[in-house]
């Protein structure tokens, strides 16, 4: 069964003048079709303003469809009675770690979500320990979050979502404000949760290297899904990606350039090893 299913999903923002009259309509999502199966690792790529964050906000019912439908874990997001259930099914981690950590001790921050849901105290502590261990942050459980690095803070934020035991976790550009080490930490944790706990992960990003390990990739531009496929398939379409303000990993680009210079190299090379093998140096 699909845990997330969008059919012809549309979102319109109204621009208003000073008196509140509608000046214009901006279509942020334009008939988006998207399917995510439980247990998949999905990436959504797109440039600044392509509509990918608007889509993320739909998946946990922060926004609701202007047209079309979106089902999350079998529940219609347009029905406001489903709001809480949807947010428990689909947890969200945002870009800026400093905007989503609220407590003064790491474990209290992680416990905030389940406490809000009315989980019994003993079980809250069990969940806090379990989720902090799953992101490798248990040894900081009694620390103050403001002494942590950006990558560590994002892992605490992920643990906070994990503690609510959602079926699906949406990471909305979780690494945009981190340094290269922090980025690696967060992406590694996301893959581990997917592999070891079977968590469905939706990663929204514009760093190409981060989508290499995904099961399936959607590329968005002007509110539409303009490309979709497995990473290798997506990255073999270098010129098309560039036309959507995207890029490919450096090795893929090098392979593409070599091909253009006349070498016999297949499309969609992702790693150095693959490139060396197809170079046929003997």
């Amino acid at each position: 069964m699909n845990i997330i299913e969008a059919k012809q999903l549309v979102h319109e923002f109204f621009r208003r003048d000073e008196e509140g009259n509608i000046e214009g309509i901006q279509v942020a999502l334009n008939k988006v079709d998207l399917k995510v199966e439980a247990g998949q690792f999905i990436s959504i790529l797109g440039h600044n303003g392509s509509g990918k964050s608007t889509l993320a906000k739909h998946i946990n019912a922060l926004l609701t469809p202007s047209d079309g439908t979106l089902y999350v874990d079998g529940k219609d997001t347009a029905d406001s009675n489903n709001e809480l259930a949807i947010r428990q099914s689909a947890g969200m981690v945002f870009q800026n770690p400093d905007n989503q950590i609220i407590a003064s001790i790491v474990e209290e921050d992680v416990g905030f979500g389940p406490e809000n849901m009315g989980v019994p105290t003993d079980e809250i502590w069990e969940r806090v320990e379990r989720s902090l261990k799953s992101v490798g942050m248990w040894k900081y459980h009694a620390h103050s979050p403001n002494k942590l690095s950006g990558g560590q803070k994002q892992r605490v934020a992920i643990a906070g979502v994990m503690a609510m035991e959602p079926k699906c976790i949406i990471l909305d550009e979780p690494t945009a404000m981190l340094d290269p080490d922090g980025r690696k930490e967060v992406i590694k944790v996301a893959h581990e949760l997917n592999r070891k706990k079977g968590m469905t992960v939706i990663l929204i990003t514009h760093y190409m290297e981060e989508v290499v390990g995904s099961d399936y990739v959607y590329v968005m531009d002007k509110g539409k899904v303009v490309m979709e496929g497995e990473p290798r398939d997506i990255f073999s379409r270098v010129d098309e990606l560039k036309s959507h303000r995207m890029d490919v990993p450096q090795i893929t680009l090098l392979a593409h350039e070599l091909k253009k210079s006349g070498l016999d190299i297949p499309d969609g090379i992702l790693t150095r090893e693959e490139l060396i093998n197809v170079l046929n140096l003997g």
Partner: protein
Amino acid sequence: MSLILDKVSYKYSTGTAYEVTALDQVSLKIEDGQFIGIIGHTGSGKSTLIQHLNGLLKATEGSIYYNGQDIYDKDYDLKDLRTQVGMVFQYPEHQLFETTVFEDVKFGPKNQGLDDKEATLRAYEALRSVGFPEDYYDQSPFELSGGQKRRAAIAGVLAMKPAVLILDEPTAGLDPKGRDEILGLISDMHKKTGNTVILVSHSMEDVANYVDRIIVMNDAKVYMDGTPKEVFGRAKDLEEIGLAVPEVTYLMMELKNRGWNVDVSATTVEEGKNEILKLKGMNA
């Protein structure tokens, strides 16, 4: 004409158990017209270093000379230094504040004491040089897209015509095209005006593509200082301090390990391509 740092140290919380040495005996000479990249781990002292260059932080030891003058001399005009050494902070769009883009860009030159006419000319010139669309000059800077806001904010610093331009991660949070556009315009301007540019970056690929000198900071000290080829030729040393070399350089190293005669100092896609074509006996 140059910027010289002589054994500059910066310590804070001195005399307490939390004393931190953020810069430790840093000596550097930055010649006019260089395009320099500063790389280093988070907390290595990069940001502390650049904040010394326009006098935002005052060294606890050592001296800094700009064009031969000691900037810590009590007669030295720091305000003047700050208009000559322009700084674009991380996420500079957070500092936009005026009602229109044009007014925002004009604010710097007006503050420098230029009359309205001259400030207006400067603002036009700066906005044009960053490729900002003319239709949006009178728009509120808060209604722009991320990339456009970034351009407007950079234009605000360029309008002061700094002789030295410092940019702290100017592409953070931008999509790949936006990143190439911003770095491209900085590089074009550098070629045209010959100003000094200092770029703080986390991206080894960006640094390899644009700069002619790299300063590597580690643990409050200058760890390496040289051309991209010299610096990226020391992959092991860079990895030891948590940094990396560009992917293309790793590929060259692997080919070399397997006994192929390639230049391991190739850092860009273009250079890598040429090396491989040579191996295959094809002319680049």
